[in-house]
């Protein structure tokens, strides 16, 4: 990751924290100031989707032409994506407790996110259960494609077919009027980019550690 990307990431997140708390937001009943959680809760999900998408691409690349590097990217981007998923779920539970009335509301999107988490955790169960490195990489790449294909309907299709309390779901696609508010966009989009870049940064650090340990292993064999 280039240094300027890291600086951009930090700058966007500092702006998110300052702007997210101090700039004007729409005054709405029930959500009140908690609407600012949008700048922190929702980017977790955007970041997760971005990381899982990168992982999916590397898995497909791996199946096309097996290489250690491709597998390393696929694993670590899922790993960082799961961290964002858990943060998204827990922040959502805090938010739901004070706006919907209970932390686990059985909202279709909430359930879908939890099932997606389980599906992706199973990715690591699968990897842990195979000894042979090539088999591990190939089978988990296939599973990763399945996991992505299962996550998309869970998060984006099913919540729209039933009624969901998440804005933009339950029949009316796209963003609801409140997050389309132009004042909020000014912070929301930078926040999405910033948090996503932070996830990518951490994932790449983990990839590099994986490269190092692989190199050390090769040195021992020589």
């Amino acid at each position, binding site marked *: 990751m280039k240094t300027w990307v890291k600086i951009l990431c930090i700058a966007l997140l500092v702006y998110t*924290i300052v702007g997210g708390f101090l700039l004007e937001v729409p005054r709405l009943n029930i959500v009140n100031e908690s609407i600012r959680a949008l700048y922190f809760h929702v980017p977790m999900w955007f970041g997760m989707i971005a990381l899982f998408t990168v992982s999916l691409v590397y898995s497909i690349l791996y199946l096309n032409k097996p290489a250690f590097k491709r597998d390393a990217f696929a694993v670590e981007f899922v790993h960082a994506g799961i961290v964002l998923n858990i943060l998204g779920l827990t922040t959502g539970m805090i938010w739901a407790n004070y706006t919907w009335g209970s932390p686990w509301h059985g909202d279709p999107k909430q359930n879908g996110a939890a099932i997606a988490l389980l599906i992706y955790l199973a990715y690591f169960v699968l990897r842990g259960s195979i000894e042979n490195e090539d088999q591990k990489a190939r089978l988990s790449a296939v599973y990763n494609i399945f996991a992505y294909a299962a996550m998309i309907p869970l998060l984006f299709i099913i919540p729209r077919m039933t009624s969901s309390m998440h804005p933009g779901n339950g029949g009316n696609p796209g963003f609801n009027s409140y997050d389309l508010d132009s004042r909020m966009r000014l912070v929301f989009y930078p926040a999405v980019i910033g948090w996503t870049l932070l996830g990518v940064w951490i994932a790449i650090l983990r990839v590099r550690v994986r490269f190092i340990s692989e190199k050390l292993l090769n040195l021992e064999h020589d």
Partner: protein
Amino acid sequence: MTKFFKLLCLLILPASAWAQPIEMADTMRSEGKIYVVVAILLLIFVGLITYLILLDRKITKIEKKLPPDSNS
């Protein structure tokens, strides 16, 4: 008369002190002290990012110790 004057002084002096708001560094205390929360969050964020940057540099250092890439 002196008594009345003293009483007048006691009544008026504090009032005149309160009459105009005194300028202090109030930014951090205004709007329900939200700026304090922002400062705390920024500090935590800067701390975590510093930690991440140090980790990044440490990994770079180790990478440089290893022999350059051959094919993997």
